[in-house]
């Protein structure tokens, strides 16, 4: 196995408040190989998004955050990097896509201006004209034909799906090694979501970008990811290749998660067993064989 691009080992996170430290992550380990698409699945508040924030190096500078364990990006420990070094990584080697594309773009600037800012991260001296040329090329890759109109528009003049594509194009513009996708397109309707995800999958395959895909949508994860980690209350409870995990979910929480998906073909929202005691069962790892019955 080659060296992983992102290697998180035994990551813990707590927030110090008035009443003491609130533990959020209790020792998470996950790794992503270059070019691999990995999903992190879990319910709200399970610790998905804070994991992404730590990878981006954005919680390290928060004074109330207590972080333990190691996060290595491309062989370098994030904790040992300076604030500026972590900032250097963001936008060039690591980038991110968010839930709501429209609010992720500043309403007072045209798309073109914002694209220019993004491209300046990689090439600080890039002129507006060059940036627009490059932006048009990337927009073309996300199936936006009339790039010129889009670049001259304000975010509120474009549809949600259009904005999402712009966001994807921006996130991939500097050819990052790692893309963090935090529930991309959750704010969009399902058809647009599928379209943009297809686009995104094509692009990351083409550019050999590794993706950490954070989601609570199992259907999307199944389509998108090579490998899946299931997270529950700050612990990884099950891990395995997508097919293995979906064909044979072994952890009680993973099963409950799959049960909870509403069926289109009648039955409506399924009843969920309220007994959550079994969810704290130890990790099931399909690859290492840990937790096998």
């Amino acid at each position, binding site marked *: 196995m080659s060296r992983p691009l992102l290697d998180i080992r035994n990551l813990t996170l707590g927030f110090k408040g008035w009443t003491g430290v609130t533990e959020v992550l209790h020792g998470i380990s996950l790794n992503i190989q270059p070019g691999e698409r990995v999903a992190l699945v879990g319910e709200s508040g399970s610790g998905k998004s804070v994991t992404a924030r730590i990878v*981006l190096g*954005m919680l390290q500078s928060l*004074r109330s955050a207590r972080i333990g364990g190691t996060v290595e990006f491309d062989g370098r420990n994030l904790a040992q990097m300076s604030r500026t070094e972590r*900032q*250097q*990584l*963001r*936008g*060039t080697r690591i*980038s*991110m896509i*968010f*839930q*709501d594309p429209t*609010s*992720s*773009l*500043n*309403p*007072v*600037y045209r798309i073109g201006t914002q694209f220019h*800012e*993004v491209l300046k*991260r990689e090439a600080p001296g890039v002129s507006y004209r060059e940036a627009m040329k490059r932006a048009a090329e990337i927009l073309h890759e996300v199936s936006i034909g009339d790039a010129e109109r889009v670049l001259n528009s304000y975010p509120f003049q474009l549809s949600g799906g259009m904005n999402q594509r712009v*966001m994807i194009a*921006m996130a991939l513009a500097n050819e990052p090694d790692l893309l963090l996708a935090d529930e991309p397109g959750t704010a969009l309707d399902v058809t647009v979501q599928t379209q943009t995800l297809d686009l995104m999958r094509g692009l990351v395959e083409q550019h050999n970008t590794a993706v950490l895909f954070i989601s609570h949508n199992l259907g999307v994860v199944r389509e998108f990811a090579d490998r899946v980690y299931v997270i529950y209350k700050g612990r990884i409870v099950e891990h395995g290749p997508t097919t293995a995990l979906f064909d044979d979910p072994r952890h009680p929480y993973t099963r409950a998660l799959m049960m909870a998906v509403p069926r289109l073909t009648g039955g409506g929202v399924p009843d969920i067993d309220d007994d959550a005691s079994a969810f704290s069962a130890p990790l099931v790892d399909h690859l290492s064989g840990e937790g096998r019955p």
Partner: protein
Amino acid sequence: MKRTISILIANPLSLLGVVLVATVVLSALFADFIAPFPEHRGAVVDFANFNKAPEWPYIMGTDLVGRDIFSRILYAFRISLILGVVVLAIAVPIGVTVGLVAGYFGGWTEYILMRITDIFLSIPPLVLAMSIMGVLEPTLANGMLAVTVMWWPWYTRLVYNITRSEREEGYVLAAEVIGASPLHVIFREILPNCVPAVVTKMTLDLGFVILIASSLSFLGLGVQPPTPDLGSMVADGAKYLPDSWWLTVFPGLAILVAVFGFNLIGDALRDILGADQ
């Protein structure tokens, strides 16, 4: 632009505001050409025509030393506008920057900056300005200083509140995620989103600054004679009411026109810029 015009037309009050403000600004700019007696802005005495009721050529009468009130009002507009613009030009950048920094960084930075702001806000504005003027010489420059000191905290409060909410917007996070520095986020991302509210408040405030400055000079603490100032003209004439009513009424009306005009424009701007959304 089309929308701007249609809003102006749809609301006759905003149109009135534009007309009033244009009148004030133009008469201040071209006072030298409009005023029938430009020399009356200074220390001129003409006892042959003192304390005259409005009659040609003194359309607003003359004051106690025979100076044309209409001419003096035109020059007083000039002083008022300079004062308003200078005060805002100093107070707004200071107030906005403090508000942005406090709102963006939060924590101790916010605590210290906002408590300092609260101290300034807790002193009644006129009392604060009066005590500053009491310590310093009563000149136009010190008058501006006094009004500026009492004015910036309001911008800090306004911008602080906007920053607090904009800070949570996705685009701020998105900018941070691609590695934008705090300076970039504050001034390039958040500040432009504060502009509509700040511009609206500035227009409204131009009227209020003129009002406060007039109050100061009414109390004898602002611009000193013989420089014409609306507040001191009202104060001087007040002793001779109601007989010599023109001494007070016309400068008073002038204050009203200026303040009212800027208020109406401020309201119109709020509609046009959508600052209250």
